[in-house]
C-alpha cells in the first residue's frame, strides 16, 4: 500500500471513529466501538491465516480463549496481572507454534479437521477442569472492571491501530509476494526457494498471536469466558464475519466485526426474525459480493489506484544476486551428478538405476516417450521427490537430502505450464525469486535485479503488466527467465518449446544460449526434436524409467533402440 493510501485510510478511520464515538451512528456507542475493535483485532489473525494465505483454520476461537484462560488461572494462583498477561500471551504463542508444526503440513480439509479438533479439545478441557477454568459456568475476570468505558474504548482502538500498523509494516513487499505465491501454488513456491511449511507455520503463529491479543483483551472486557467461546461454532462465526467484511483485505476484519456488532444492536427488535435476516444477508453477500463488503467498497478505488504503486523508480544496479558468480565457473567441469538413482511409487518403478553427469555450460536433454520418467527425474533433481535409492550431487556436494527450497539457489526450474502468480505483476513474479536468493538487499535493489533479468531476456516491456494480460508463450519465457535469476549452476526446463510460436521459439533458443554462455548447465525435457537437435549438446533417452541410450544428440537420434521406442516409423 502506498503512503498516500495509508494516510487516507487512517484519516477516514479516524473520522468514522469520531462520528461513532459521538453517537451519531444509530446503535453505536463507545462500548460497541470497544467490542468491535477488539474483535477486529482478533479477526486480523484469521484474516492473515485464512484470508491472505488461504489456510482453512477452523479453530481460531480457541486461540482467543486460551490466553484468557491462562491469565485467569494464573490470576487465581495469585500471579500479578502485569506478569500474568504477557506470560499467558507467550504461552499461547509458543503453543500456536507447536500446533502449527503439526498441523500446517496438512492439506486443506485435513487442516480444517485438525484445527477444528484443536478447538474442541480446548473447549472440552475447559469444561473438564472447572476448578481451574470455571467450567461451563464460566471464568470471571475481575480486573477489567477497574477501567471505565472510555478507557476501554481507548485501549481497544489503540490496540487495533497498533495491530493494523504491525500488519501494514509486515505484510508488504517480499512477504506479501511470498504469501501470495504460497496461496497460489505451494509447489512452485517451494521450487522458487520459499520454505512453504516454515512460512505457513510463521503466519499461523503470527495470526494466532493476533487472535490471542484480541481475545485476551476482549474477554477481560466482557468479564466472563465460557467454554463455548473456544469452540467450533464461534470459529465458524468468525469465518462468517471475516467473509462478510472481505477476506484478504486489510480492512476486512474491521468492516466485518463492525457490521456484525452493529447488525446485532439494530436487530434487537427483530427477535424471531433475526436468524432469517442474518442468513439472508449472509447469503446475499456470498452470492453477490463474494469479496465481502470491503471488496464492494474498494472496487472503484482499486480501479483508480491500479497497480501503479509497484512502478518504483529504477535504481542503478550495484548489486547482483548472491548466488554462485559465473566467473568462478569453468565450462566443462562436472556440475550435476546422479548416482544410480531409483524411484519407485508403491512398488511401481518410475526410474531404475539412472546415472547422469551434466557439465557446466552444456545443454543436456532428456528424451523419451510420455511416462518414461523424465518429470520424475526433474522432481528428484529439484528435490520435490526423494529418490528411493541413489544419490544426487551438485558441484561435488551431496544434496540428496536437501529439501526443495534449500536447493532453489542452486537450481532454477521452469514448468511445462508456467506457474506464475496471477495476482502479481510480471516483475513481481520475478522479484519473488530474487527475494529468496538475496533477502538482505533492499526492496529497490531486488526490483532492479529482477528488471535487469527481464531486460536481459528482452521481456522488460512486459514488466508492469499483470500476468493475466500476457500471452501463454510469453508466460513460458517469463517463467524461464525467472528460473534463471542469479545464474544458478543448473536450470531445468520442462517442455519449454510446447505451445510457442516460431518467433517465440527463436527467442527461447537465444535465451538458452545466453544461459549456456553464463556457465549454467541447462537440462531440457522436450518432444520437439528439431528444437532439441539444434540446441542440445548431449542427452539421455529414457523408456519406462530405464536408460536406453546416451551420448551426443546426433548419436542418440541415430540409435536403433531409440528409433523403436521413440521415433517409430515416422522418422
Amino acid at each position, binding site marked *: 500500500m502506498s503512503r498516500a493510501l495509508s494516510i487516507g485510510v487512517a484519516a477516514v478511520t479516524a473520522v468514522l471513529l469520531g462520528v461513532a464515538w459521538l453517537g451519531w451512528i444509530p*446503535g453505536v*456507542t463507545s*462500548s*460497541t466501538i470497544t*467490542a468491535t475493535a477488539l474483535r477486529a483485532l482478533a479477526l486480523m489473525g484469521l484474516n492473515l491465516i485464512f484470508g491472505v494465505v488461504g489456510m482453512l483454520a477452523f479453530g481460531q476461537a480457541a486461540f482467543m480463549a486460551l490466553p484468557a484462560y491462562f491469565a485467569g488461572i494464573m490470576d487465581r494462583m495469585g500471579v500479578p496481572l502485569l506478569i500474568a498477561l504477557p506470560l499467558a500471551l507467550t504461552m499461547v504463542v509458543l503453543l500456536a507454534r507447536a500446533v502449527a508444526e503439526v498441523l500446517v503440513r496438512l492439506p486443506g480439509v485435513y487442516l480444517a479437521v485438525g484445527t477444528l479438533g484443536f478447538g474442541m479439545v480446548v473447549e472440552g478441557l475447559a*469444561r473438564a477442569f*472447572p476448578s481451574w477454568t470455571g*467450567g*461451563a*459456568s*464460566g471464568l*470471571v475476570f*475481575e480486573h*477489567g*472492571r477497574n477501567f471505565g468505558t472510555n478507557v476501554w474504548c481507548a485501549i481497544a482502538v489503540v490496540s487495533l491501530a497498533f495491530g493494523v500498523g504491525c500488519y501494514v509494516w509486515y505484510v508488504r513487499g517480499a512477504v506479501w509476494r511470498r504469501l501470495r505465491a504460497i496461496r497460489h501454488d505451494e509447489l512452485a513456491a517451494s521450487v522458487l526457494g520459499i520454505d512453504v511449511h516454515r512460512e505457513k507455520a510463521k503466519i499461523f503463529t503470527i495470526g494466532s498471536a493476533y487472535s490471542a491479543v484480541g481475545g485476551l483483551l*476482549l474477554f477481560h*472486557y*466482557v*468479564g*466472563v*469466558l*465460557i467454554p*463455548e*467461546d473456544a469452540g467450533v461454532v464461534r470459529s465458524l462465526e468468525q469465518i462468517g464475519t471475516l467473509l462478510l467484511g472481505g477476506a484478504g483485505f486489510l480492512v476486512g476484519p474491521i468492516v466485518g466485526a463492525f457490521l456484525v*456488532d452493529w447488525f*446485532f*444492536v439494530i*436487530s*434487537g*427488535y427483530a*427477535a*424471531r426474525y*433475526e*436468524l432469517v435476516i442474518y442468513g439472508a444477508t449472509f447469503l446475499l453477500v456470498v452470492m453477490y459480493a463474494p469479496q465481502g463488503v470491503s471488496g464492494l467498497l474498494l472496487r472503484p478505488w482499486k480501479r483508480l489506484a491500479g497497480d501503479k504503486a509497484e512502478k518504483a523508480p529504477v535504481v542503478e544496479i550495484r548489486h547482483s544476486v548472491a548466488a554462485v558468480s559465473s566467473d568462478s565457473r569453468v565450462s566443462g567441469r562436472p556440475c550435476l551428478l546422479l548416482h544410480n538413482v531409483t524411484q519407485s511409487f508403491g512398488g511401481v518403478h518410475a526410474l531404475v538405476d539412472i546415472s547422469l553427469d551434466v557439465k557446466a555450460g552444456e545443454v543436456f536433454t532428456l528424451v523419451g516417450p510420455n511416462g518414461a520418467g523424465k518429470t520424475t527425474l526433474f522432481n528428484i533433481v529439484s528435490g520435490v521427490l526423494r529418490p528411493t535409492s541413489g544419490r544426487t550431487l551438485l558441484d561435488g556436494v551431496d544434496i540428496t537430502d536437501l529439501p526443495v527450497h534449500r536447493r532453489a539457489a542452486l537450481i532454477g526450474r521452469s514448468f511445462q505450464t508456467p506457474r506464475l502468480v496471477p495476482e502479481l505483476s510480471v516483475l513481481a513474479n520475478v522479484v519473488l525469486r530474487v527475494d529468496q536468493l538475496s533477502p538482505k538487499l533492499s526492496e529497490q535493489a531486488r526490483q532492479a535485479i529482477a528488471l535487469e533479468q527481464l531486460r536481459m531476456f528482452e521481456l522488460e516491456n512486459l514488466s508492469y503488466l499483470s500476468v493475466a494480460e500476457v500471452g501463454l508463450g510469453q508466460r513460458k519465457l517469463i517463467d524461464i527467465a525467472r528460473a534463471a535469476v542469479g545464474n544458478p549452476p543448473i536450470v531445468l526446463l520442462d517442455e519449454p518449446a510446447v505451445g510457442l510460436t516460431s518467433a517465440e521459439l527463436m527467442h527461447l533458443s537465444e535465451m538458452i544460449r545466453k544461459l549456456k554462455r553464463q556457465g549454467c548447465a541447462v537440462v531440457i525435457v522436450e518432444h520437439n526434436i528439431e528444437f532439441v537437435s539444434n540446441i542440445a549438446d548431449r542427452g539421455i533417452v529414457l523408456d519406462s524409467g530405464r536408460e536406453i541410450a546416451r551420448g551426443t544428440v546426433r548419436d542418440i537420434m541415430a540409435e536403433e533402440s531409440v528409433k523403436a521406442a521413440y521415433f517409430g516409423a515416422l522418422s
Partner: protein
Amino acid sequence: MKIMKFAILTLLAASTGAAHAADPFVVGIVAPTTGSLTTVGLRQLSAVQWWEKKVNAAGGIVGRPVLVVHCNDEGSPEKSASCVRDLISKGSVILLNASVTGPIRAAMPLLQNGPVMVTPSPNIVPSPASYVFQTSPSDVDLTKSIASFLKQNKLDRLAMLASTDASGEVGVASAAEVFPKEGIKYDLARIDLRANDASIQLANIVKPEVKVVFSNYSGGGAAAVVKSYNNLSLAQPLIVSYANISDAFINVIKNDLPTRLLGTGLKAVAPEMLDDPARRKHVEDFMASYKEMTKDNVDMLTLLGLTLADTADAVLRNVKDPRDAASVRTYLETNPVPSIQMLRWSKDRHVGMTADDVSVLEYKKGKWVKADPVQ
C-alpha cells in the same frame, strides 16, 4: 415543597426531553431467542410480553405505558454484556435477564451502579451487595427438595445424571453439598450435550438396589435420557429437572414416558398445592389469560418469566422514582413481592424463594400434581 419538586421534575423533563409524563417505562429484557437456549429465552420473554400487553391495555402504570425492550444475547457472554450496555443506554429502569449462567454472570459487573437486574436462573445466587436479584430458589434448594423427598420415602440411594453444561456443573456441586449431609449415597454420571443416547450412563449408575433416578439435564437433549430410560426398560421412577416441567418436553417424550415421571418444580406449577388463595388465583388467572393470548400452555419457564414481570410491576407501581437504582434495591430488599409465590428478598439474601417453595411433582393424566410416595 410539592410545587418545587414538580418544577424541578418539569425542568428536568424539559431539559432532557426524555421524561415526558406519557413517556413509557422502559423495561429491558435479555433473553436468548436464537442459539441453543432459545426455548429458555422465548418462553420467559413471552410471559413478560404478556404482562406488557396486559398492563398497557389497562392504561399503563400510573398513567405511563410500559415498553419492554428485548435484546437477544444468543446465550453468549460477550453479547449478553453488549445487550446490557445497550439496554441501559436505552434508559431501562429495571433489567430482566432470562438467559443462562455464563451470560448473566457477564452482565453482572456492568451493574456496579444499577439498574437492578432480576433473573430467574437458579445458578446465580447473587451477592447481597449487588444490584442483582434472583427470583427462583437456588440449585441447592432444588437439590434439597429431592433429598427431603427421598427421606420421606425412606430412601438413601440415588442414581444421578448430569449434563456437561453449566446447569449440570452446578447440579453436581449442589449434589455434593446436599446429599452427603442428608446421608444419601448417590452414583453420578455425566452426559455430553451432543449425545444421542444415555444408555451407557444409565447402564453405569442404575443398579437394582437404586430405587429412584434423577436427571439434572435441563436442555432439550434431556429427551435422550428419557428415551434411553425406556430403551433399557428401567422401572424406577425418574425425576427430571426444573426446566423440563413443560409441555414441550412432555411432547417430545410422550411416546416414551417412563413408568413414573417425577420432577422438581415450583409449587405454582400445580396451583392446588399453593396454600395462599391469592397466589393460587394469580397463577390460575395468568394461566387462563396467557393461554387466551398466546394459545400456549403455561409451564415452569413461563411461570419464571411471570416472576420477572411481577417484580418489574411491583417496582414500577411502588417505587417513586424507578430510575433511582438504590431505591429500587431498597424496595426489593424490604418488601416481599407477590408473584406466583411470595418472593422474599432481604439485605442478606438476594434469592427470592427457598427450598420450601419447591416440591417434587408427578406427571399424571396430562398434569403435574404432587408426587405419590415411592415404594
